[in-house]
């Protein structure tokens, strides 16, 4: 064997080795979570409120809370994010403004999530007097998701072939009609795929809702967006840091983790299915 072959041989095998390590790591990770949490999950666990200081019962209010926080934050962030991306990609605009917006987005993307929590506390809870509520939490999570949504949307809009835009304008459509009837419909599936990935992040974040939406314990389901709620990630945190029955609380925390991961996995799978269907349908 000459040197190049040896080089190639070790290179390839090193690569295999690292892939193997990653794979093992993932398996161990899943095993730890599911072996401890799997047996806790039952129909009762999914559909009942916690009892006896969280040592018994289920996590239904936390599932509902995370559901609403995620859905509402997306409803708030999606239009704003898409609108910003349209602004960045389409309309004629001064270059300095685009630069400022871009710097702002990238800075936002790098901010640690606990800072979002503080921001939400100051702005939504205090200044706007939304108090600790689904609304405050959703707004905070929405701001957190915004950079991801904007970047995904911008990329999706930019990948729409220029030909489509030119063809539309050449047929006498206005810039606005071109965006609404051609650019957005063409880019929307990709925008949604990119966005769904950010849903996973939003659903799993603890820090942003810590001061803005989450409550340690309630048997009640929220009746409006002004109510505080339980949420899955915060529930895990609470189970591990509060109370005095660790031997009963820790398994519930793992069970909660299983549910949270299942939710995120289902959402990611949904994204993959959507992307697959688009790829199958499109061919330009």
């Amino acid at each position, binding site marked *: 064997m000459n040197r190049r072959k040896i080089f190639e041989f070790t290179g390839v095998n090193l690569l295999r080795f690292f892939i193997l390590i990653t794979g093992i790591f993932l398996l161990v990770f899943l095993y730890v979570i599911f072996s401890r949490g799997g047996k806790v999950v039952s129909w009762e666990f999914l559909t009942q409120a916690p009892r006896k200081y969280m040592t018994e019962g289920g996590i239904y209010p936390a599932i509902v809370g995370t559901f609403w926080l995620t859905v509402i934050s997306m409803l708030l962030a999606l239009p704003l994010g898409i609108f910003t991306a349209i602004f960045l990609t389409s309309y004629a605009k001064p270059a300095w403004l685009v630069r400022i917006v871009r710097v702002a987005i990238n800075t936002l993307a790098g901010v640690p999530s606990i800072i979002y929590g503080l921001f939400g506390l100051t702005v939504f809870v205090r200044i706007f007097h939304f108090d600790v509520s689904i609304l405050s939490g959703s707004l905070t999570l929405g701001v957190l998701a915004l950079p991801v949504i904007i970047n995904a949307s911008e990329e999706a809009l930019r990948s729409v072939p220029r030909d489509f835009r030119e063809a539309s304008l050449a047929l*006498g*459509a206005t810039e606005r009609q071109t965006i609404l009837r051609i650019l957005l419909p063409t880019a929307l599936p990709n925008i949604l795929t990119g966005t769904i990935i950010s849903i996973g992040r939003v659903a799993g974040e603890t820090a942003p809702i810590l001061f803005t939406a989450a409550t340690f314990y309630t048997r009640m389901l929220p009746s409006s967006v002004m109510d505080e709620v339980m949420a899955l990630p915060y529930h895990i945190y609470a189970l591990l840091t509060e109370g005095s029955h660790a031997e009963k609380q820790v398994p519930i925390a793992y069970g909660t983790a299983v549910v949270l991961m299942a939710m995120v996995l289902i959402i990611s799978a949904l994204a993959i299915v959507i992307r697959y269907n688009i790829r199958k349908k499109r061919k330009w």
Partner: protein
Amino acid sequence: MVNKAHISTEDLNLWFGENHVLKDVNFPVYDKKVTAMIGPSGCGKSTLLRCFNRMNDLIPETKIKGKVLLNGNNIYAPKTDITEVRTKVGMVFQKPNPFPKSVFKNVAFGLSVRGEKKNKIDEIVEKSLRNAWLWDEVKDRLNSSAFSLSGGQQQRLCIARALANDPDIILLDEPTSALDPQSTAKIEELCLELKKQVTILIVTHNIAQAGRISDYTAFMYLGEMVEFDETQRMFTIPKDKRTEAYLSGVFG
């Protein structure tokens, strides 16, 4: 016989940044005729074509001087409604570029952005597809994706889409360069048929094509309109040395 010019330029100059692309172009496009623009690649044919429907407006740093008259009105006058210009002046691009929509919606697009009524749209879509010689091939699959059509069909779909706006003139920028010989022949015949109802201005890299379908030919070289004449006359007795050289294939 004096031909009425449908669209013409007066001392048209265009710059992309520092690049002086069109130089003092004076050029008539006659009513209900086929006019071909020929010239070596990069000489400004596409750019001139895109002046007629103001598509160059999309390119930043473009500067234009001079006039483009459409039915006597300067389309570069400040108060011009650009969308109206683009409705009257249709365009077909080099590469077929249907929208990722159904065959029907492609043809209906121009009408629907102007809020035309549903039954009127149905009627015009059918008429436009017939005029583009596509109706028989697609009438059973109006709701299929435009991408399911062949390249030649897609290009005729783009022609139908432009026709649906009932334009005065259609601009075609090397519309057959991406097509096979059969599809090319069909589009050439179609142009000859269409000139009964609409003025046609076609850019072509193919001298023989200009000879086959055009009544008039314009030869461009390095941003100048070197020669404009009846095709027959230009192809037999070119006035300019450069035209003669180009027609005899000296520069590709």
